[in-house]
């Protein structure tokens, strides 16, 4: 069975396998960082940036690190869906050869599980590399009189504890959890696929996605008065608000994709927008999930800008806060790059799935630019509203909690909204530009006669 699964995995192509492995490697490395934070004593025997060293802020940093696994997990979901048509044909051939439905399901799980396991193991190496690059200094290595050490900026790079390490059972648990997460995401991505000896069919969900994410956003909003009623605003409340809001935005994304598609379909006179809108209406979940990371990033970006605005209003010039915000901005940029990958992989999957109708459109006289425009609109119709809602929600929530807003702070907020939406727009353009070779291949005449 495993040998067959390895063969199937290799048949899926090295790029897909590499992508699956890379995603789980990043998730595994981030989880090992989380475990290391958890093992760090209140007074660490090394010099680390305050965000990690101070037990008061460490919980938030640990949570933020865990949250960083969301973009690679969303990319993993898209990567698993990549080339599903060819994968489904392989599984149908196995059914024809005599494999039972259970055996096919197990093979499907193993097909994802093998690269996920390899990636998780590679994640341990990635964690070790991160520790070398971003590791803390031991007390013996540090010259406390040095000006360089005094620089907060330099200290901000000492983010990963080196005085404590995950135990072998921690690492094993993380590897198993990450691999199982890969298999679970794979099972979610293949949900509704019925493999029979005569081919593969999909149970199309007739019900459009529901806006259940609103419940999480409402819950996040309810935490605010509850926490304020207690008195001092506890860190756990902040973590709960951010966590619920991010999950709410991610949960709302498929519904937003469906509604945006319906709205655009009923109003547009553009062929590209009509194609994009109808694709969203027909299958809103993958497009929504591809854009969900963008919404979460925008939410945190808005929140970060509101904190900066608050600091400016109270004239707090402690570099710790600004360097911390710069670190958050850096992490968001990396997450946005992962989101570009997610949008690009969704675009490629969309082209591979529809290559015959794309080739037919090209033959009818639809230029490649127009086809690419449809790809861009498919991402833009979901990502832009989600990003706008995310950045405004994040900014408004933190601004309300902070309660201080100066004219300069307001300017920072407006600049952040403009910058975030500009970057999201650039990310969409980049994602579609990356997929141009697949668009050219999908429009090929050869696809007109494939059956």
């Amino acid at each position, binding site marked *: 069975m495993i040998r067959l699964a390895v063969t199937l995995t290799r048949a899926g192509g090295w790029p897909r396998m590499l992508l699956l492995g890379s995603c789980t490697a990043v998730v595994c490395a981030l989880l090992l960082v989380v475990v290391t934070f958890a093992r760090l004593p209140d007074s660490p025997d090394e010099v680390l940036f305050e965000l990690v060293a101070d037990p008061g802020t460490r919980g938030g940093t640990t949570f933020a690190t865990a949250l960083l696994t969301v973009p690679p997990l969303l990319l993993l979901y898209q990567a698993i869906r990549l080339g599903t048509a060819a994968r489904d044909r392989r599984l149908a051939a196995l059914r024809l050869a005599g494999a039972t439905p259970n055996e096919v399901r197990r093979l499907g799980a193993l097909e994802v599980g093998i690269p996920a396991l390899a990636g998780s193991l590679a994640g341990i190496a990635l964690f070790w590399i991160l520790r070398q690059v971003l590791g803390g200094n031991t007390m013996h290595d540090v010259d406390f009189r040095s000006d360089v050490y005094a620089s907060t900026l330099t200290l901000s790079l000492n983010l990963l504890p080196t005085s404590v390490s995950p135990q072998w059972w921690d690492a094993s648990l993380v590897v198993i959890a990450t691999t199982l997460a890969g298999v679970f995401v794979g099972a979610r991505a293949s949900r509704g696929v019925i493999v029979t000896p005569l081919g593969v069919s999909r149970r199309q969900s007739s019900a459009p996605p529901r806006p259940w994410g609103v419940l999480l956003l409402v819950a996040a909003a309810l935490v605010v008065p509850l926490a304020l009623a207690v008195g001092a605003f506890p860190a756990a409340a902040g973590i709960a608000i951010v966590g619920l809001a991010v999950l709410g935005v991610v949960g709302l994304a498929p519904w937003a994709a469906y509604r945006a598609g319906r709205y655009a379909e009923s109003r547009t006179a553009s062929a590209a927008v009509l*194609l994009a809108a109808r694709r969203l209406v027909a299958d809103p979940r993958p497009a929504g999930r591809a854009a969900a990371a963008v919404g979460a990033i925008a939410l945190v970006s808005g929140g970060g800008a509101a904190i900066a605005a608050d600091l400016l209003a109270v004239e707090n010039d402690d570099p710790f806060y600004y360097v911390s915000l710069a670190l958050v901005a850096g992490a968001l940029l990396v997450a946005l790059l992962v989101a570009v990958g997610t949008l690009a992989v969704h675009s490629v999957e969309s082209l591979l799935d*529809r290559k015959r109708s794309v080739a037919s459109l090209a*033959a009818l006289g639809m*230029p490649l630019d127009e086809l690419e425009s449809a790809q861009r609109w498919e991402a833009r119709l979901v990502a832009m509203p989600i990003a706008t809602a995310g950045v405004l929600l994040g900014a408004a929530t933190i601004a309300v909690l902070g309660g201080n807003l100066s004219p300069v702070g307001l300017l920072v907020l407006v600049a952040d909204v403009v910058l975030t939406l500009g970057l999201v727009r650039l990310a969409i353009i980049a994602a579609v530009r990356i997929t141009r070779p697949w668009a050219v291949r999908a429009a090929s005449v050869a696809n007109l006669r494939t059956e």
Partner: protein
Amino acid sequence: MSAAIVEAQAVRKAFGRTEALRGTSLAVDEGEVVAVTGPSGSGKSTLLLCMAGVLRPEAGEIWYDGRKFHDLSEGDRTRLRRREFGLVLQFGQLVPELTGAQNVALPLLLEKHDRGAANTLAHGWLERLGALGVADALPGEMSGGEAQRVAIARALVTGPRVIFADEPTGALDTVSGERVLGALLSTARATGATVVLVTHDNRVAASADREVVIRDGAVEPAPVPR
């Protein structure tokens, strides 16, 4: 230059080491219905796609209305296909996410027509071809015959001068095939459009004004006059 509306002159086209067309020539007059027949793999579909400007031949020339395709840029050829030609294929040509009416209106929207006007024209053509019942249906919900009628409506909606049809009834049962072919030819004749029809079905070929037989990438020496 020829007086024919569309003409292939000594066209050669290969796919890898397989030569699909070996110096094939074919001239089609305006308003004529020509059936291109031949065994599987003889190169008839390749000839049709070359004449429609979808494939670019390695040697030889394709002329359309006094213009040589070779001199046109990719963008110009694409625009020409959209405005002057209609294309009907055997299967898989409708956009699966668009309704019947939206599929038909698509070429008009590409030409920047008004949304309402495009919609009205699309419904008009669907009605003319007896497919108004599937105007709001998705291709996956249509029968093969209904989908082909929608495809023909989409090919005709821009008022093309030439319709290229590659095995338009190949995936249909006899009754549906006859209905679809009847709809295509009667509408084309009513609008004065030229039709180049690829088929391996003798009954379909018999409906054309002229039959051209292709074997091993070359036109048979004596085309059958009708």
